[in-house]
């Protein structure tokens, strides 16, 4: 039951003001995981991607997504009415700025930025800025609103409960599906289209390790994201899951516990696997815990949230290794696993452990099947078409000299010059 009242509005606004820390943290993390010769392009690209995502969402996205209970288009199939897209005017016209829908719009202006940063990080070191921006417009202006309407805008996935007696319908209180998993799938498509970085998969040898250039950025970005994610989960729980604002402390505690579980599990697994803890995988473990928490934080008990994070963080290094070695996927930020897999895991856990009427797990499976079976091919098709018009992959020379010099004309660290004989004994 939605308990949004006039007193919830200031709280929501306050939480929304903290949400940008999630994309900022992720941008910093992505830039740190990148090579130094592409760091400026990565961070400038993050800003551009967030800006374009916000603009595209406000221009067209909101009109396609809408809010539960507002005007929408439906089709009738099998005697059931399927609410598939909103029917709101463009440019945020018609939004009631004092109603919950205004808070929802404000929240998602930042949430689409977070979503768009996931594929941007996965395409690092080889994705042109221009085509990255074009893909972002597509993502924030059409793909995200379409799916978000089905889940958060009163669409057919949200209606699985009343229409088909599947629990409370597809539940995604913090964006594990609409933001994390969709972003992870888009990252997978981008990695497929771009192909690996030069030198990543040499002939007849194992994949080359291309280490993060600034692990301080990575870890600090992870810490900043923790604050933004807590706010995102809390605000989304009020707006989209009808959570009681008085119960928000549990959501925040669960978010923190899931992130902690993810971090510590990744630390332990990398310690056992490689002999020493891997800092970048530990940071990604924490982010995986956060991504999974988006599905469960508002719904389950603290031990269940900790369990969710621990499993997400423990599996993360293993799946990243599997995708890199066996599937030859070059994903510098790990976005496919960190957001895609962890979001999927969180959605499954919420189907099992969240208190809901019978059929909830099947509802969660239907939502996951829609993401994988419909959204993934749709994203692939649209990105492949876009790739024909605006090629994703940069010129080989750009990869050789780095994206900073190639696209921006200057490096991120102009005074940072390495002399090959500097460290040799004299």
């Amino acid at each position, binding site marked *: 039951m939605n308990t949004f009242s006039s007193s919830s509005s200031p709280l929501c606004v306050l939480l929304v003001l903290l949400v940008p820390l999630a994309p900022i943290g992720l941008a910093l993390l992505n830039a740190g995981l990148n090579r130094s010769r592409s760091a400026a392009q990565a961070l400038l690209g993050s800003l551009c991607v967030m800006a374009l995502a916000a603009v595209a969402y406000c221009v067209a996205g909101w009109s396609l997504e809408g809010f539960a209970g507002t005007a929408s288009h439906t089709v009738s*199939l*099998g005697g059931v009415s399927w609410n598939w897209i909103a029917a709101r005017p463009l440019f945020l016209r018609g939004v009631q700025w004092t109603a919950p829908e205004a808070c929802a719009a404000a929240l998602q202006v930042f949430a689409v930025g977070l979503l768009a940063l996931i594929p941007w990080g996965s395409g690092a070191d080889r994705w042109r800025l221009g085509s990255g921006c074009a893909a972002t417009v597509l993502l924030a202006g059409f793909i995200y609103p379409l799916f978000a309407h089905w889940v958060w805008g009163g669409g057919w996935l949200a209606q699985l409960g009343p229409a088909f007696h599947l629990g409370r319908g597809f539940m995604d209180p913090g964006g594990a599906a609409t933001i994390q998993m969709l972003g992870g799938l888009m990252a997978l498509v981008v990695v497929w289209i771009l192909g690996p970085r030069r030198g990543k998969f040499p002939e007849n040898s194992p994949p080359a390790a291309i280490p993060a250039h600034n692990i301080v950025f990575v870890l600090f970005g992870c810490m900043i994201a923790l604050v933004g994610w807590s706010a995102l989960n809390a605000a989304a729980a009020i707006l989209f899951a009808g959570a009681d604002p008085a119960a928000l402390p549990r959501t925040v505690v669960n978010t923190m516990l899931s992130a902690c579980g993810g971090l510590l599990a990744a630390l332990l697994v990398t310690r056992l696997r490689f002999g020493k803890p891997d800092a970048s995988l530990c940071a990604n473990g924490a982010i995986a815990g956060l991504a999974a928490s988006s599905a469960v934080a508002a719904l389950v008990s603290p031990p269940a949230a900790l369990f969710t994070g621990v499993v997400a963080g423990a599996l993360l290094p293993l799946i990243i290794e599997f995708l890199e070695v066996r*599937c030859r996927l070059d994903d510098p930020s790990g976005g496919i696993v960190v957001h895609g897999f962890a979001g999927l895991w969180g959605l499954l856990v919420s189907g099992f452990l969240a208190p809901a009427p*019978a059929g909830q797990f*099947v509802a969660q499976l239907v939502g996951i099947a829609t993401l*994988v*079976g419909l959204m993934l*091919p749709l994203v692939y098709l649209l990105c492949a078409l876009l790739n024909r018009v605006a090629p994703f992959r940069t010129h080989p020379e750009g990869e050789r000299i780095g994206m900073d010099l190639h696209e921006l004309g200057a490096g991120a660290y102009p005074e940072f010059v390495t002399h090959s004989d500097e460290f040799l004994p004299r």
Partner: protein
Amino acid sequence: MKLAGLSLLLSGWILVLFALVLLPSPAERAAFVVAALAVEGLGLALELRAHRDGAGERP
């Protein structure tokens, strides 16, 4: 192979829709949805394999 993978993904989702519309029994519906997810898993595996085979070094 890429096209086959994408077709399987889409087929899995269509199976889910059919399960929702045509099957009234919760158990049958759940079984059909799980089967549809397995079809999608097959499509994803095929797609991963297709891209792996084409993921060699670029000039």
